[in-house]
């Protein structure tokens, strides 16, 4: 699902899955995308708050058991994860990966 039709071209020629154009907050679009039969949903639009709201709607209105929401802001990600939402925060992950990368550098001792 994406609000722009162009997103389909990013999937390449060989894409044989479904594709629905529309906004994730719109329940009629969710239904068209087959939300009622979904076992798992990943909510990863470019808006943190859209993802937070859509994830809760999918969980509570449509009863999908496995819902993961991408939240860029670590503070909101932490709060909503404590509220029982499965959140994924690329920012936190990047920070720890980068910190590890820096730590693993062999820095020559200074004279």
């Amino acid at each position: 699902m994406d609000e722009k039709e162009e997103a389909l071209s990013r999937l390449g020629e060989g894409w044989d899955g479904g594709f629905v154009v529309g906004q994730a907050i719109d329940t009629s679009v969710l239904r068209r995308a087959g939300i009622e039969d979904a076992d798992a949903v990943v909510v990863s639009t470019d808006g943190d708050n859209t993802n937070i709201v859509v994830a809760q709607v999918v969980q509570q209105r449509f009863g999908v058991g496995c819902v993961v929401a991408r939240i860029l802001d670590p503070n909101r990600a932490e709060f909503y994860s404590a509220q029982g939402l499965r959140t994924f925060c690329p920012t936190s992950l990047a920070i720890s990966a980068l910190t590890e990368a820096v730590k693993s550098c062999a820095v020559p001792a200074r004279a």
Partner: protein
Amino acid sequence: MYVLVAGGGLIGANLARSLLRAGHEVTLIEQRRDRFEMLADELEHVVVQGDATELFVLERAGIQRPPSIVVAVTGDDEDNIVICQLAREKYGVDKVIARVNDPRNQVHFDLLGISPTVCATSSIMALIEHEVPEHGLVHLLELPKENVEIVEVQIPPGADCTGMPIGRLELPEGARLISVKRDGQFELAGDATTLRAGDQVIAILQPGKEDELRRVLLKS
């Protein structure tokens, strides 16, 4: 009373002005730099710049005190929902009021228990319906938490209920007729009141029982 207003557009800014005039303490959060500067020129320290869905912005605006009411009136419905959730569940704010920009999102506010909400489109629709009753029944007031609503019904000519005393009508369970307006005169509805065509009847009932009430009052 201390009120935190998120969103400094026409609604938020005028709300802040009115609350200040009424002697309340207000903090207004506005994200856009240009709007913030204009508002800050006028309202000075009352205005805070930032994204009201970010915890540190809310905290800088004093949400930890906490305010008596948080009003989320940004132009984005998802933002308004998140602001209300954070206010209530993270900071223990008792009362939140949210603006619904797109009436199609009302169901999400309801689902997530964010209430009361204000939606300009729905309010105007309700006014239009009040002028031109489409299905014979106009919603005057809805109190979803209390599970009651107040509606107005105009009795059509030839309806089965005309000539019947109210006490003999088989109203839906929990429903009561409150008043009858006839020829511009308003009277409280009693069991002995007899309905006539053209009467404007105000009733209290549980949401969802409108069809049952229509059957009793409109059917001919």
